[in-house]
């Protein structure tokens, strides 16, 4: 075998000799390449190229700490950014976000950039939605937003029971280094999530909802984010209160219990705990337009497993409006409508129409539909 070092000492006198030199030293080149390959393989065996995420799941306390950090992040600082929601079907929606906080006051403004124009303002748990196309301003109070610190405590345990939380490979979102946690469901009744949070501030930057096969159903993320922008709370509050000239609508709802309205589940759907129940007056707009028409009353029963929520709307069956049962998918939100069966049980369940909505698989919503039972009247 020729010596290795002549490779460097040989001088080529003519252009053709360069080629000749290369061809003559195929043996040395071959040896070098094989050596490189062997070293690379050996290196790969000895030490992985990228740091691998831990294989064991986060404990309940670790999950609790992580969630607490996520919530604290948005309460501490102002930010402005662009938020983009995209679904597997190809739909894309984006909005401009302003967030300001002062002590306990949290104010947010969301201006949609796609679709029909919409401005949503939030001050703690009060939300006002301006719809310029109809000149309507909807005001409502969202309990789930205000109740958080206490609610969170009860959710931690549920989440660890139902999902396995593991750190995943980190990434970058909107220019910020993010830490990733993957929440894998332990059964097929719910979706999985991947959450990116800013390594420094813990603000949630991106959330992916994954279906039961692990495919991404929906992604909601900041495409642009600027911290500590000078957003004035008082200005946002002023914009929020500017409802003159707008038709103000407020949903009519009464907090109650499912039992009071005469409904129960034959057996609970695993992991989903009832959270709230309301009686709503639906079709208020139609009632106002056609004088004399009474709004319909419907039960709105809310369940949650800590990360996903399900709403069951039960209203009296109306053959004019309610036809075939159906299904709908909008990103991660799935909807199932069906006429409650139960003729054989003989307690008149067949007179009701169920609309089940939730960020859960269709099968889960159908399970709710099968287990919903009308309580026998107690009187």
């Amino acid at each position: 075998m020729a010596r290795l070092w002549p490779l460097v000492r040989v001088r080529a006198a003519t252009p053709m000799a360069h080629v000749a030199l290369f061809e003559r030293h195929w043996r040395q080149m071959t040896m070098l390449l094989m050596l490189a390959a062997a070293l690379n393989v050996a290196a790969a065996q000895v030490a992985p190229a990228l740091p691998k995420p831990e294989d064991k799941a986060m404990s309940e306390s670790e999950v609790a700490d992580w969630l607490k950090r996520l919530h604290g992040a948005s309460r501490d600082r102002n930010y402005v950014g662009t938020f983009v929601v995209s679904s597997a079907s190809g739909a894309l929606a984006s909005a401009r976000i302003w967030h300001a906080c002062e002590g306990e006051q949290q104010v947010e403004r969301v201006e949609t950039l796609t679709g029909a124009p919409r401005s949503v303002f939030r001050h703690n748990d009060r939300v006002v939605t301006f719809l310029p196309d109809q000149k309507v301003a909807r005001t409502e109070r969202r309990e789930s937003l205000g109740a958080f610190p206490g609610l969170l405590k009860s959710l931690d345990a549920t989440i660890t029971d139902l999902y396995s939380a593991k750190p995943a490979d980190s990434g970058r979102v909107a220019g910020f280094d993010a830490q990733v946690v993957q929440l894998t469901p332990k059964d097929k009744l719910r979706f999985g999530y991947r959450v990116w949070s800013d390594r420094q501030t813990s603000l949630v930057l991106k959330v992916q909802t994954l279906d039961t096969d692990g495919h991404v159903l929906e992604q909601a993320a900041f495409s642009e984010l600027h911290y500590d922008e000078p957003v004035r709370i008082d200005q946002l509050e002023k914009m929020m209160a500017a409802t003159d000239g707008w038709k103000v609508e407020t949903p009519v709802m009464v907090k109650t219990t499912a039992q009071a309205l005469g409904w129960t589940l034959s057996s609970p759907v695993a992991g989903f705990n009832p959270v709230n129940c309301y009686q709503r007056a639906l079709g208020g707009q139609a009632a106002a337009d056609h004088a004399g028409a009474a709004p319909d009353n419907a039960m709105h029963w809310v369940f949650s497993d800590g990360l996903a929520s399900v709403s069951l709307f039960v209203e009296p069956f109306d053959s004019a409006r309610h036809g075939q049962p159906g299904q709908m998918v909008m990103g991660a939100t799935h909807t199932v409508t069906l006429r409650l069966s139960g003729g054989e049980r003989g307690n008149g369940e067949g007179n009701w129409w169920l609309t089940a909505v939730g960020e859960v698989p269709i099968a889960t919503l159908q399970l709710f539909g099968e287990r919903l039972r009308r309580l026998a009247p107690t009187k």
Partner: protein
Amino acid sequence: MNNPHLNDGAAGEPRMEPISALVDGQLRVDVFANAVSACVEGSDARAAWHTYHLIGDVLRFGESAGSASDDGFAARVAKRLAEEAPAVRHAAVEAAVTPATENVANYHHPASESGQNVREEAANSPVFRWKLVAGLATMVAVGAVGWSTLGSGLSPAGMPVGAKPGQSLAALDSRADSQALKRSASSEPAGSAALSVQAGSRQMIRDPRLDELLAAHEQAGGVSALSMPAGFLRNATFEGRGR
């Protein structure tokens, strides 16, 4: 020298005109042949030939392009070649002989198979087997690098900086995710998210009541550890309803 043309004129002094004409390229046919043979045979004619070339270079370029005539150089090279060639031929012949006598089965000398006319291959001619081995080694090296990269896993990448809202989903996501999204997209109709889905014979009609219910779900049903801020922002942004 017995070339009559060149020996005319003064005794012992060859005539330079044919040489000059030779350098100028004016000679033809047998006169040309004679002049060339004179240069070959006579050192004086050859010296004259070199001188004329030198004069021409100086006149044209102002300097001499090449070295002075060196009769010895050509002779030396010829001598070396003659010395070398028999040695090379001897080695080739021995190599040809050895396999025949020792009967080494896998020794292959290309020249020996051609028979008597043993011509050694030039030292810098390519040997195909090494090209093959080198190509294979390259592939192995590339494969090893690629394998270790794949083995360590593709990390789910974050969004690119400054991604505009109008970009398609594939651009926003990491490649693995965008492929996953494309797969699940096949189970949903492409286009707006607000389309009804046909499940068997069922089709859901979008009506204002449904919109109202979806809004109610958004309002009161967002009980999730992720609802602040991501869930709220998602609901506020996602135009799934056409109100």
